[in-house]
């Protein structure tokens, strides 16, 4: 463990409002424009809706498709894209799987009918009738589509990924810890490949109700850059499936797989965000555990647009005392909750593979030219969690 193996990202599986796959996301990064926005269907909230998926391409059995709702389908689909992108189908039997998961879809029509029928009754009477309505109204298989760990279960069933299987829960920070633990396990020699990521469907009132309770969502029509939402702060949810295939460099080279980027380090903290324990200071503690080269810093930020954490991120970056070229993943993908951090890492890996930082969007994103060798990925979660990752370009001579 004194000489841990380098960890490479050998494949990415991305599905977002910008499209699906490497090429769609490369194009979106170069275009420097926000992805499709729907500010009517979920008004007063805007979302970035996901693309229509040809599910058969990644989930060939209709029976499997029927056992899932959109969230699990999206994640299973994106996981399959990542496996194909890495050419790693042959590794699945012993591949680690770490999924950052939210909850699956509720039957919203049933919920609304129950609320309408029972909402005005005295609690005791409502409780009795609730049993009756749920026992007759809930679809038996819906439970499995709701269970958080069943996204991982479906990935195992559909794609045959059957090494370790872990499901982390905890919004954005779960995505960051998933990447951190997956990389750490490989680095210490527990396995040679890992599939890690998450999925998030923006078009869901059953999640919006929670995020709005937490004050996380932007309540305004139209779009504004993540770092320029002073008038109407908050996140614009974006449908996002984001999976990464991680491998030890040695294992990747042996099978002739090129790496997109090297993960040099991931560090997670969680400030109480009270007067005594601030978010910027927590991120600074995490930064101290990384080893980024001096000089100008390219940053792909998982910023939400929520006022407090955005300010904390500004303070943290200012505290580094060096020029920063900031790019918000949210400007390209929207806010993807659990999928945000894996999605940001995926964008960073693609950018490093091409040697091109995404085109600047808005006043908050300074121009960047010159060689792109290192990227800091940030994840200041909307409610709790500060996470950083250092990704580095892989020198041509290290590739197979």
């Amino acid at each position, binding site marked *: 463990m004194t000489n841990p193996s380098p960890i490479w990202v050998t494949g990415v599986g991305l599905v977002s409002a910008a499209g699906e796959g490497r090429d769609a996301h490369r194009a979106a990064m170069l275009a420097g424009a926000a992805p499709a926005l729907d500010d009517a269907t979920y008004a007063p909230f805007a979302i970035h809706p996901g693309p229509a998926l040809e599910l058969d391409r990644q989930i060939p059995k209709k029976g499997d498709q029927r*056992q899932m709702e959109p969230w699990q389908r999206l994640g299973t689909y994106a996981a399959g894209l990542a496996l194909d992108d890495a050419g790693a189908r042959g590794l699945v039997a012993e591949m680690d*799987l770490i999924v950052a*998961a939210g*909850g699956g879809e*509720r039957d919203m029509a049933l*919920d609304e009918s129950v*609320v309408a029928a*029972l*909402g*005005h009754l005295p*609690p005791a009477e409502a*409780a*009795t009738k*609730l*049993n009756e309505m*749920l*026992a007759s109204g*809930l*679809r*038996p298989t*819906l*439970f*499995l589509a709701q*269970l958080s*760990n*069943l996204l*991982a*279960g*479906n990935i195992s*069933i559909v794609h*045959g990924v*059957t090494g*370790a*299987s*872990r*499901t*982390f*829960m*905890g919004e954005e920070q*779960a995505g*960051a*810890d998933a990447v951190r633990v997956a990389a*750490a*396990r490989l680095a*210490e020699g527990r396995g040679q490949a890992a599939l890690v990521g998450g999925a998030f469907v923006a078009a869901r*009132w059953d999640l*919006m*109700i*929670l995020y*709005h*309770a*937490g*004050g996380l969502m932007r309540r305004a029509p139209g779009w504004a850059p993540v770092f320029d939402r002073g008038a109407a702060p908050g996140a614009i949810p974006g449908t996002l499936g984001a999976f990464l295939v991680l491998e030890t460099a040695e294992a990747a080279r042996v099978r002739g797989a090129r790496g997109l980027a090297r993960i040099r380090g991931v560090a*997670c903290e*969680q400030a109480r965000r009270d007067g005594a324990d601030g978010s910027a200071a927590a991120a600074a503690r995490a930064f101290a555990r990384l080893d980024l080269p001096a000089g100008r810093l390219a940053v792909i930020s998982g910023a939400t647009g929520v006022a407090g954490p955005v300010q904390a991120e500004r303070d943290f970056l200012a505290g580094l005392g060096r020029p920063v070229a900031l790019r918000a993943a949210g400007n390209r993908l929207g806010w993807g909750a659990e999928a945000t951090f894996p999605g940001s890492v995926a964008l960073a890996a693609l950018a490093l593979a091409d040697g091109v930082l995404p085109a600047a969007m808005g006043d908050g994103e300074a121009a960047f030219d010159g060689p792109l060798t290192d990227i800091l990925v940030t994840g200041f*979660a909307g*409610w*709790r*969690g*500060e996470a950083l990752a250092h990704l580095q370009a892989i020198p041509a001579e290290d590739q197979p």
Partner: protein
Amino acid sequence: MNTTDHRGRPIVAVTGIGLVTPLGFGVEANWAALLAGRSGIRRITRFPTDHLRTTIAGTVDLPEEAGGEVLTSSDRVRLMAQRAAEEALAQSGLPSPFPGPLMLGMPPVELEWPGRFRLAAETGEDAPSYKALTEAAAGRDDLYRTTAFAGIGEQLAARFGTRGAPIAISTACATGASAIQLGVEAIQRGETEAAIAIGADGTVQPEALIRFSLLSALSTRNEDPTGASRPFEKSRGGFVMSEGAACLVLESLAHATARGATILGVLRGCGEKSDSFHRTRSNPDGGAVIRAMRNAIEDAGLTPADISYVNAHGTGTPENDKMETFGMRAVFGNDAPPISSNKSMIGHTLSASGAIEAAFSLLAIRDQMLPPTINHVEPDPAITLDVVPNVARPAKVVNVLSNSFGFGGQNVCLVLSGAPA
């Protein structure tokens, strides 16, 4: 003393245990009840059970709800986890702020019906849409705190001063074991000298009960609550939902001995293997559960012959117990060690069970006693194992294998042993 294991990793000791189950609060109360073969299963009184196929469960009555308050599952999970952690931390003697991370095994949580009805009332509408409910939720940070998946971990981390970001994990019925495994790995990697691992569940509420019921997973032996959980027995008809929490304080053996802590045992090995066969059933070839058991034994540097006792997953569903028996025979052959199911007494505590059963495994080693599988009236001819029927018994217990097999094919096994000589 050697403080590294056969793979050169730091040995992971347990220096604190805390338990909350339907059998009571605290390690000693629970252990005494378990050895006495007492069942904690009873009729549900927390909510009306009209129209339900199953009306029994294991439930924990918390002091915080003594006045008739209706707590959400999220609050119940947090309060039981907190209680278990307080007991374990006091025993460990480690300070607050705690010098390591929190690994929390917990169920998914969400907005529940009482909360949904309250939001509906605030809309002033007869039939409010989700959009109207969402608008009514504006500014309800309290609601977010109980429904965000990060909420419980954040509150526990704040209370105990754990380091870094808490990890909340769910691997269905293997969750508690996965939480322990995360803590063990963090210590083995040298990320930390100590970690708090908790498994907690508090989802005995109407919708969750109905969901399991619709999967035909639950026992409907409603007239005989204490006899309803019948792992390995011929007339077993499903598991009994339950709740509770266990906490293990994990610490590198070097760190624990240097500060003179009492070593309650060691987490000697962890093994996992997932299945790709079906969402709720194991592959009939038993491959994944067999591999999970073998991986744990191998990770511990042992052979099957070194295992003195197996703390079963033993849910009492026809399927699980058959598969577990099959797996036992594959791993241990004709010389399978005794195996017993704590779930016969406490029911299936779901996300907590892996942690609770790890705690009981350590107590079995401490007292050289095997807890029984109660309700063993008519043996199942297909189950040929020694299930320690009905009565606890003394035994030489050196290494325990604790099995946890989850929906979604997530299987985790732990090997626990006594303090190194």
